[in-house]
């Protein structure tokens, strides 16, 4: 069992929902990313570090913007491994790398997983990696004991969703909307029935992301999933120079009810 699976199991026993926070690595700069992690780690269960990519097709304007800004500073995978290495000195929070395939492929898949293991990365999410193309990466994640976290969408058929869930060694990332990332007021009406159905088909942990941006969402969905992933809402706060800490603290209070 991976560290992430152990953590989620523990949370479940305590009747707590997992809170995962997404940060674009190196936005607005490396120092801020490291400092922010230090400030919010006590409120969150997982931290996702996004690898900025020039052509992020699954992302809305907010994450696109933060990626472009990070790329202006030439942030690359090596920088991100250094961030992980630095924060690992003081923190035990599981860290997940989220990145599009091309930069990872270009870095070298084997090299990526061995460096990730060495620096203390716990999981990997690749939004443009379909189940059909995932075998090699699943094998490498198994060898290096890094959780493989696949995505399931509202458009994913039943059989396929089961197959994808089975391939997970961390949790299943359920996208809450048919669309790209970005804070939203309303979450799709299809989500709850979808989660209910998925729950009957798999025992894997289900974390919901894409559009999750406030306590209300967590309140409404907490019965049907094992945790939440918040991304764009955090990037918005960083961009507007508002307190991420306060926001995360409030969400964290909400997941502990």
């Amino acid at each position, binding site marked *: 069992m991976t560290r992430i699976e152990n953590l989620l199991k523990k949370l479940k026993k305590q009747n707590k929902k997992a809170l995962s926070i997404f940060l674009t690595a190196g936005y607005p700069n490396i120092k801020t990313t490291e400092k922010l992690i230090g400030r919010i780690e006590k409120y969150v269960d997982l931290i996702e570090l996004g690898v900025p990519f020039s052509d992020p*097709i699954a992302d809305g304007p907010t994450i696109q913007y933060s990626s472009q800004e990070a790329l202006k500073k030439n942030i690359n995978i090596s920088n991100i491994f250094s961030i992980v290495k630095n924060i690992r000195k003081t923190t035990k929070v599981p860290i997940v790398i989220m990145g599009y395939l091309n930069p990872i492929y*270009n870095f070298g898949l084997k090299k990526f997983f061995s460096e990730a293991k060495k620096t203390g990365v716990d999981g990997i999410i690749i939004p443009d990696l379909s189940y059909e*193309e995932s075998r090699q990466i699943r094998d490498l994640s198994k060898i290096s004991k890094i959780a493989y976290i*696949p995505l399931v969408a509202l458009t994913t058929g039943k059989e396929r969703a089961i197959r994808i869930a089975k391939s997970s060694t961390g949790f299943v990332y359920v996208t809450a909307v048919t669309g*790209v990332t970005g804070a939203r007021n309303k979450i799709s009406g299809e989500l709850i029935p979808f989660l209910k159905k998925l729950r009957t088909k798999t025992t894997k942990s289900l974390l919901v992301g894409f559009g999750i941006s406030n306590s209300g969402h967590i309140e409404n969905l907490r019965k049907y999933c094992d945790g939440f992933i918040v991304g764009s809402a955090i990037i918005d706060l960083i961009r507007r120079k508002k307190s991420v800490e306060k926001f995360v603290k409030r969400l964290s209070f909400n997941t502990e009810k």
Partner: protein
Amino acid sequence: MIMLPDKNGYFGQFGGRFVPETLMSAIFELEDFYKKAKIDKSFKKELNYYLKNYAGRPTPLYFAERLSKKLGLKVYLKREDLCHTGSHKINNALGQALLAKRIGKNRIIAETGAGQHGVATATVCALFGIKCVVYMGSEDIKRQALNVFRMKMLGAEVVPVNSGSKTLKDAINEALRDWVTNIKTTHYIIGSCVGPHPYPMIVRDFQSVIGKEAKRQILEVEKHLPDYLLACVGGGSNSIGLFYPFYKHKSVKFIGVEAGGLGLFSGKHSASLERGKTGILHGTKSIILQNKDGQISQTHSISAGLDYPGVGPEHSFYKQTGRAEYVSVTDNEALNGFKLLSETEGIIPALESSHAIAYLPRLSKKAKNKVVIVCLSGRGDKDLDIVFSNMHK
């Protein structure tokens, strides 16, 4: 005919499906419908009806006599510029729109660089009464104003894309984001042989009407197959359409001409196959222009239709296996090609096709009196402003 791609969408080691999970259901659905349509006589009949009576096929294979004499080659032009809407793009747009109708999608989106694919898509949407949205980089909107106006006249909504390089690559990103959001109602007509499987195969099949006709036509006049096939390559749809039906005929050499922009060492070009390396972009594994970190490069070409950092996976396969040779010509050479064809034959070519024409003088040095078919993929009306301003610099 070879059976490529394989069932996973691979041409050798290129191709595949690398997209967000939300899109996978629509991709499988498209693949299913296409498989059925391909063997359905009524689909073929319907498509052929529109290709003949609406698009104006078959297009002529024209012997360019004065040009041939000048270069010491036997040059035939496959006149896709004579298709309705002025380029080969209509072949694919018609095919995919008919597929979308079968699937039951009532909204179509497309991306466009030079505007030719946008115009073709807007046209077929008007023809079949389907709502149409076209994504276009704001840089391309500026340089292809006439085509933007055309799309609007045809009832399409043209959405400017301001991210990245504001050109074709970013228009594709935005179209993919729209598709992820509106997947249930919308079909995405990709305009080139790029994108996740089954797109490269579908676009190639719909465009291979070019090569099938050319083969029949050249056998009629020359009584033998050509020595060379020559076509420009951006994403690569007109070239793959010309090449593919000749794949088995090893005596026929394929030459794809990429956009060399300001020169291969200037960093401002779109010559993916000459300067790129294997990577994943827009749902497919192919050869792409990227930096050392795997970030996609900004490209340049005088012709908006070639201004793209990738190429269809089948071209990467042809390159790797040596079946085709890929070369590039610069912006200036393309302008010379534009003038050359205009002056010798009274045909004003699109700047994309001008790249293919511009390679002829180089080819003539090693291929004296050989028979060459050039795909004249589009007509040049849309580019007159650009050519005008470049000639008066």
